[in-house]
């Protein structure tokens, strides 16, 4: 995880559910490169074609509600999303996303300060997100240390790998 994340913003509304991120008909697809082609087919159809690596998603409340499908954050990671910022997240989506090493930040009021295409700058430990076009900045409570460590390790797989390796004799 970078301490400072910068990127171009795609805005989304409230209650974007996981069916809207990746539809139920793709749930048997495991390959992230295949999944990414179908990302937001329902909620933001122009995204899959137009997304560039490092783009930042800015959503309203309850982003990622609905099923526990990890396909949703996986598809977003595969297409190169740099961070997801929302007023609030649904619980399992938030966990899945952090566990995959995808910076996911809850910042109340964030949706209101961005328009589609605006440049954003996020300071993960400092707890700020800035609209670099308008200069408007809001503060958010930084993630707990435990989760920042998870992101820094690159996600849960890497973190557990280190932990298990550490347990090995010698």
């Amino acid at each position: 995880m970078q301490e400072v994340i910068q990127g171009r913003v795609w805005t989304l509304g409230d209650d974007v559910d996981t069916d809207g991120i990746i539809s139920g008909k793709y749930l048997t697809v495991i390959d992230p490169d295949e999944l990414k082609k179908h990302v937001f087919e329902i909620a933001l159809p122009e995204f899959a074609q137009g997304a560039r690596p490092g783009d930042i998603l800015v959503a309203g409340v309850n982003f990622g509600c609905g099923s526990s499908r990890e396909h949703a954050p996986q598809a977003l990671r595969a297409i190169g999303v740099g961070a997801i910022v929302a007023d609030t997240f649904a619980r399992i989506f938030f966990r899945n996303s952090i566990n995959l090493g995808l910076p996911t930040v809850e910042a109340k009021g964030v949706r209101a300060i961005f328009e589609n295409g605006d440049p954003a700058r996020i300071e993960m430990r400092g707890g700020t997100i800035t609209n670099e076009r308008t200069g408007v900045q809001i503060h958010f409570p930084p993630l707990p240390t435990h989760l920042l460590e998870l992101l820094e390790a690159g996600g849960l797989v890497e973190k557990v790998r280190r932990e298990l390796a550490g347990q090995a004799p010698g």
Partner: protein
Amino acid sequence: MSGDGGTHGMTLAEKVLSRASGLDHVVPGQIIEGRVDLAMMHEQGAQTVGPFHDMGALKVWDTDRVVIAIDHWVPASTEGAAVLHRILRKFAAEQHLDHFYDVGNHGICHQILAENGWVVPGDLAVGTDSHTNMLGAVGSVSAGIGPTEMAAVLALGRLWLKVPPTIQIRVHGTLGHGVTAKDLILKVLGEVKTTGATYKSVEFCGPTIESLSMPERFTLCNMTTEMGAKCGVIAPDAKTFEYLAKTAKHSMHPLYADADAQYERVVDIDVDGMPPMVACPYSPDNVRPLPEVAAEQVKVDQVFLGSCTNARIEDIREAAALMKGQKVHAGVRFIVSPASTSIYSQCLKEGLIEVFTEAGAVFTNSSCSACFGGNMGILSPEEVCASSSNRNFPGRMGAKEARIYLMSPIATVATAIRGVISDPREMM
């Protein structure tokens, strides 16, 4: 965040998490490492296998605490599903995971856990499905997690959790004739909304809850997922112990909220005089009284009686009693899918399958069936569906334009008979 003095009592979820973490006292917001009593995987667990190996894990921490139950595509209806099943079978064989509910002994994963006593009072259970919340009805904290996280659980037998604040839902009064636990949970959803309990524990209590059977309690806790809740819990009582008496797979540790537990919010619901409820498109919290919607003569193309919310033997029995001797309305497809193979067998023994097939319904094998729009019973854009399941988001059962109305099992039968959304009480 754990230093508030810790003097007040704990809610039921806090009690369970304090047991799981080995701490005397936990408070909302605190991050704990919880020891897992039961881990469940369905097809999404196929995505657990890769990360499990990538982590360098060699063995599952405790093979007697892992259950695999395939349910979304059973038997495999696509090549992709067949691959997922095969990955799981291979992993189960390598890791000696014998509690595998494979084709022929299958059912919806949550129902498999419930009817086989895999989750007991005091447990911390996790599953790769968001409706794992259902098992909170036995007095456990049961929550959905993703497959990567499951890999860590399989490797370590524990996971990090943030202790949730608790919303208490106190229910008073008596459910009227033709008004069910499903109507009650829809009513609660209408008040608490889909974001009202995000990251929280929802604790049901009060005289009405005590009067409910275990299947009804499962229906309630199942749909706490639609409120965004981490878990939905009900204190164990004589009914819980009786339900688990023959099946409990490990020892019970019944826990109860303290009298001075702190609740973030208390919601009082009085069900006296409450009519049946229906959740209208496109959100489970878009809840209205069923008679109001029935008055609008909403025509349906498909009716689904199934899913982990409402396809237990009790649901199907009540539905069959209403269906008996009646016909499914012309032009309506009525799909009935029991939640497990054992429920299917029971339906067969009781002659319930015949009731539905003679009426012109299709009675299917047990699986998630039409619930999630990826297997069967898929809707086209113009269609309207009445369903006993739990979600009606755009695209949930197929086309994103299709309109889904959520209701009780008996309301689905009334609707299937009349071809328009109907109040079952008019037929009882």
